[in-house]
């Protein structure tokens, strides 16, 4: 998939995360602000890269402002932001690229 325009998903509520994606400069640029970065920074980065790989994205600026979201929430927000940035609202690949 190709990121076409900025896309955003999620909120700044406790236990949620706000994910913003933008077209990249030929690679994945990852930026993280998190209330739990000391304990879960590496895990959040891993989830982000895994999710992007599954979605077939290798060219993106992704920024996550995390308020202690669980992995499942982070995945869902990343997927939401990416599909919005691609203008795809129908025929979503449930059970495929979206796990």
């Amino acid at each position, binding site marked *: 998939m190709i990121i076409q325009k900025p896309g955003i998903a999620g909120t700044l509520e*406790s*236990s949620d995360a706000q994910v913003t994606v933008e077209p990249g400069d030929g690679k994945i640029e990852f930026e993280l602000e998190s*209330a*739990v*970065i*000391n*304990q*879960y*920074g*590496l*895990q959040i*980065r891993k989830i982000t890269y895994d999710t992007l790989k599954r979605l077939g994205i290798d060219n993106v600026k992704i920024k996550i402002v995390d*308020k*202690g*979201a*669980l*992995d499942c929430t982070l995945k869902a927000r990343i997927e939401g932001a990416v599909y919005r940035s691609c203008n795809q609202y129908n025929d979503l690949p449930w059970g495929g690229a979206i796990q």
Partner: protein
Amino acid sequence: MINAVGRDIPEEILKITGKEIFQGNHYKDGYTYKMDGPMTHVVMDGRESKLVPSIADVLVKCGIRDGMTISFHHHFREGDYVVQMVMDEIHKMGIKDLTICASSLGKAQNGIVPYIEDGTITNIQSSGVRGKIGEAISAGKLKGLAIMRSHGGRVRAIESGETRIDIAFIGTPTCDDYGNCRGIGGKSDCGVLSYAIVDADHADKVVAITDMLKPYPNFPAHISETKVDYVVVVDKVGDPSKIATGAAKPTTDMRKLMMADYCTQFLIHTPYFKEGFSYQTGVGGASIASTVSLAKVMQERNIHMGFGVGGMSKPMCDLLVNGQVGCLLDTQDFDLDAVEDVKELKHFRISAGEYCDPYNKGAIVNKLDFVILGALEVDTHFNVNVVVGSNGVITGAQGGHPDTAACAKCSIIIAPLLQGRIPAVCTDVTTVTTPGESVDVVVTDYGIAINPARQDLIDCMKDVDLPFKTIEELRDIAYRISGKPERVQFSDRVVGIIEARDGTVMDVVRQTKPFEFS
């Protein structure tokens, strides 16, 4: 050196502080010593006035100078103006290298951070530090060491002479011109002055600061004129709306109500739940709900509490009003109902020393059956952390936690298994503040773990229908939901020590390191 809770205390820290490592709760049992007393400037001439026109003047009269130790209490809680107004004047005079010995420091004192940065304050001794001061200490901005000690430990340090207070500043809601202080009857009432009593007894100079001067004698005095050198009247000692807030509304959070119910069910199945039992609890939502649900069972079974002790809030005062408790022994008031209730005949004010000092001839906590306490983290050794956040930053206070947990026959920790993403039950706490040997039971929303050291309690619960689990099982549930947390990265420099109630070293707190992806 490795101490009794498995923490490695650097030799250098032991050398600088002259302290020993923690060797178990009963290491100092039976210790004998001579209490330290204050330098006393006698007043025999009745024409001499104690009233001084301003803070600046009283600082001069007390002979403030570099390197002194000054003290404060925290009864005005988040509404306190006293620390800031005294420190502003001291700063203007250019005094350096002060040690602050406070019963606690919090958000109300955020304004003193610049004085830490510029060397006006170089050492801090407190029950803990919330807010910006905690962040500043964790970032390494304090030149000396922060010593975090429990309420009982603070009394011990002062009585033993380990901490000598040069000047005590005691904010008081009312005072007369000769120094009789009371926590009620003014415009900024905090109810009691319990934590300031040891300061008044042992500091060389004692300054009462009030915003309500009463006609002599302001009796019955909570702190006596015989202890007070000077009285200063200021516009405001605090913001009443932040000193004592309205009573916390009973929680409607089903998770907390469930934990409260688990806690009550556990408590009533122990042998200590009988006519005349004693009880202490904090003011968290679940703790308050526990008191409410316990009161119901007490009524059904016609069982009365002998005494309730510690910080007071509405649910405890309701027990007194409803005749369900013999008396309340009050060290601190969390809401306006508690402040108001201080006027009741069976609501007694006690000093921090009477409450929980390990170094006197026996404190009230020694007589405690149950205590219900919160926690930031509990680990699989039942060690509890209430001072350092899981991110490594100093963010809380010991308060009476280690004192009550060490002494109560049944110490119950109540905490939701996850606080956001952070597991409250983990393999090793970031910092040990209360040792596992003090902790008997951990109640969470996912189950209850009894310390294996308490086989007697495990036996009592054999036929009780509660979701019992091992502490390792609770940790595993938390890690399954959240993922296993990484260890927080610290730099080598020690910025603070967690002192055990007997003055030995429980743990150290190191400077935090900004997170970087490797």
